[in-house]
C-alpha cells in the first residue's frame, strides 16, 4: 500500500510561512530597533513561577518538570516547591544586587496559593506576566474551547486580584498552544506573548481579534535546556551567556538593538550551588558594552516607537 496521493500534495507551498500569523521578514532587512539610553543589547531575564500538581493528568503530555514516579511523588513535588519558597528569593537577591528588572511569569495557581510571593516580586519592581493556570493546564488543539477561555480568564483575574492590574504578557504552560490559542489570548485581553521562538526581535502576530505582539523567547540559554536536558556544567552556561552577549553586541552595532533572553526556573537556578554561577553569568553579560537589563514590556515599548 503506497501512501495516500495527497501525501504529495502541498497546499501551503507558497510565499512566506505556511500559516497566516506573520509574513516572511529577514531580520537584517528591518528598521533598526532603538533601545533606550543608547543600549545595544537588551538582557531579558525571564523567571518562571510554576505550580506542579501532585496528581497531573499528563494530557496531552506532561510538562517538563512534572511528577514522574507513581503517586504520591513527593520527591518531585517538593523539589519544585522548593523553587517557590527558597530558590526564588535567592534569585530576587541577585537581581536586586545587579539592578536587573526581570519578567516573572506567574501561573494562576501560584498567585492563588502564594500571593505574598507575587507581592514581593511586584514590590521589587519586576514585571509580572501570566504563565497559564498551572503546568497541568496545557493548551492544545483538542482542549475544550470553554476550558481554554476559562484557563486564560482565571489566570488573568487571579493575578489581577493579587497585583491590582491584569498582566499584559502571556507565556503558555510548557509553551504549548492549540491552533486557536493566540486568538483566544487576544480576545481574553492579552497584548503580547512569548510562546514562539521564531525570531530575535518582537514581531507583529495576527489573530482573529487583532494584532497580538510576539516577543520571541529563545530557549538556548534556558536553565532547563542547558543544565537538565543537556546536562552541561554551570561554567559552560556562564560561558555561553558571555559568548552570546559578545556576538549580539557586535551585530547591534551594524543592525540595531538585539535581545538576549535567558529563562530561569527557581527550582533549577535557585539551587544553592547554582546561584553564584547564575550571578556570574548575569554580571558578565552586563559588563559587555551596551548590555542593559530590560523587562519584556520595556523592550516592546522601545520596539513600538
Amino acid at each position, binding site marked *: *500500500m*503506497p*501512501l495516500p496521493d*495527497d*501525501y*504529495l500534495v*502541498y497546499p*501551503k*507551498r*507558497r*510565499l*512566506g*510561512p*505556511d*500559516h497566516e500569523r506573520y509574513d*516572511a*521578514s*529577514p*531580520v*537584517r532587512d528591518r528598521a533598526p530597533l532603538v533601545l533606550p539610553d543608547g543600549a545595544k543589547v537588551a538582557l531579558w531575564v525571564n523567571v518562571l513561577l510554576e505550580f506542579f500538581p501532585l496528581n497531573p493528568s499528563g494530557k*496531552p*503530555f506532561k510538562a517538563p518538570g512534572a511528577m514522574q514516579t507513581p503517586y504520591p511523588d513527593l520527591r518531585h513535588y517538593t523539589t519544585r516547591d522548593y523553587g517557590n519558597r527558597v530558590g526564588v528569593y535567592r534569585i530576587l537577591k541577585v537581581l536586586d544586587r545587579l539592578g536587573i528588572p526581570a519578567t516573572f511569569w506567574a501561573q494562576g495557581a501560584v498567585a492563588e496559593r502564594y500571593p505574598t510571593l507575587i507581592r514581593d516580586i511586584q514590590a521589587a519592581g519586576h514585571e509580572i506576566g501570566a504563565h497559564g493556570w498551572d503546568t497541568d493546564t496545557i493548551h*492544545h*488543539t*483538542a482542549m475544550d474551547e470553554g476550558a481554554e477561555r476559562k484557563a486564560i480568564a482565571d489566570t488573568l483575574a487571579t493575578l489581577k486580584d493579587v497585583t491590582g492590574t491584569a498582566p499584559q504578557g502571556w507565556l*503558555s504552560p510548557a*509553551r*504549548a*498552544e*492549540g*491552533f486557536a490559542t493566540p486568538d483566544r489570548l487576544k480576545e481574553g485581553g492579552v497584548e503580547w506573548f512569548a*510562546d*514562539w*521562538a*521564531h*525570531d*530575535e526581535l518582537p514581531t507583529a502576530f495576527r489573530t482573529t481579534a487583532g494584532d497580538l505582539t510576539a516577543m*520571541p523567547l*529563545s*530557549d*538556548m*540559554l534556558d536553565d532547563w535546556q542547558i543544565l537538565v*536536558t*543537556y*546536562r*552541561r556544567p554551570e561554567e*559552560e552556561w556562564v*560561558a*555561553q*551567556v558571555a*559568548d*552570546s*552577549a*559578545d*556576538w*549580539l553586541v557586535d*551585530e547591534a552595532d551594524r543592525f540595531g538593538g538585539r535581545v*538576549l533572553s535567558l529563562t530561569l526556573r527557581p527550582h533549577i537556578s535557585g539551587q544553592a550551588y547554582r546561584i553564584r554561577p547564575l550571578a556570574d553569568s548575569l554580571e558578565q553579560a552586563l559588563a559587555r558594552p551596551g548590555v542593559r537589563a530590560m523587562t519584556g514590556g520595556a523592550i516592546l515599548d522601545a520596539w513600538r516607537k
Partner: protein
Amino acid sequence: MTHRDPNLYDYWPYKERPKIVWPGGKKLAFWVAPNIEFYEFDPPGNPSRKPWAAPSPDIVPYSARDWGNRVGHWRLMEVMDKAGVRGSISLSVAMLDHHPEIIEACVARNWEFFSHGIYNTRYSYGMDEAQERAVLEDSIRSVQAATGQRIRGYLAPALTHTEKTMDLLAEYGFWYTCDLFQDDQPQPVKVKDGRLISMPYSLEVNDVITYGVYNQSPRAYADVLKRHFDQLLEEGEESGTVMCIPLHAYLVSHPNRIGPFQEALEYITGHKDDIWITTAAEIAEFYLANHYDGAVADIARRGNARGGSGFNPVAG
C-alpha cells in the same frame, strides 16, 4: 521482504587504496552543507513517523526552525563568506516557494543546491516508486527553474529512504548520495544502471547530533571539528579524504554557538595549502572522472566484489 544487508556497496578496507590526490595536489576536500529546510506547521501524518513530538501545532520546535529562516541563515552566510567557503545546500525544495529571498542570496554566492526532499516533514517511508519519482522530478525541475542549476546530489528528506532510492537517483542523472555513512572517502554505489557515488557527509560532526544527541557545548563542538579535521588531513597524505560539516542554521547560528563555530571554520580554512575548499558536486565530478573506475577495479582485485546491486540478491 526485508534484507540483512543493503548490498549498496562492497567491503573496502581503509588501507592501501589507490591514492586520491585532489586538484592542486590537495590532501583533503572540504565542503560545508547548510541544510536549508522547511518543517511544516501542520504536516500530514506518515504511518512510520510522527512529524512532531507534541500534537500539532508543536510551537517551540516549529518556531525554532522558522527562526533559522528569519535569522539563522543570514548569520551563517556571513560567517561562511568571511571564511571563503561556498555552501552545498541540502535544500527542502519547497523553500524555493516559501523563502525566495534566501535562495537568491545563495545563488548570488554561487552556492551549490542539492535536494533534501520537498519538506523535511514529508518522509519517503511508504512511498511507491511513482511517488518517489514524483519527488525527484519535482526536485530537479523546481531547482532548475528557480536557479538554473541542475542538481546532482540527494540527501533523502529527514534521512528516510526506500529500497529504490539509489537506483532512481542514478537513473535521473544524480552523481552522489549523502545518505551513506560507511566511509571518509567517496565510493561507488551499486545501482542497477548508471553510476552513483556515496559522498562523505557526516552524522558525527553534524550539528544536529552535536546538540541534539551528544549534548555538546558550543566550544566542545568547535574542538571536535578541529580534531576531526586534523586527523582527516593527516590521513589525506596517504590518499585524499573528504570532510563535510553538515549544518542547520536553526541550531548553529544562535549567538551562544556561532562564535566558537566561526573559530573552528577559520582554523580549518587556514590550511589553504593542503585543502581543497569546494562543493560536493565538484568533488563528485572530479571523483567520477578520475577515481571511480580505479575504485571498482581495486575492490574487484581484492576479491571483495559481491555482485548484484542495492537490495537485489547477490547472484550465486
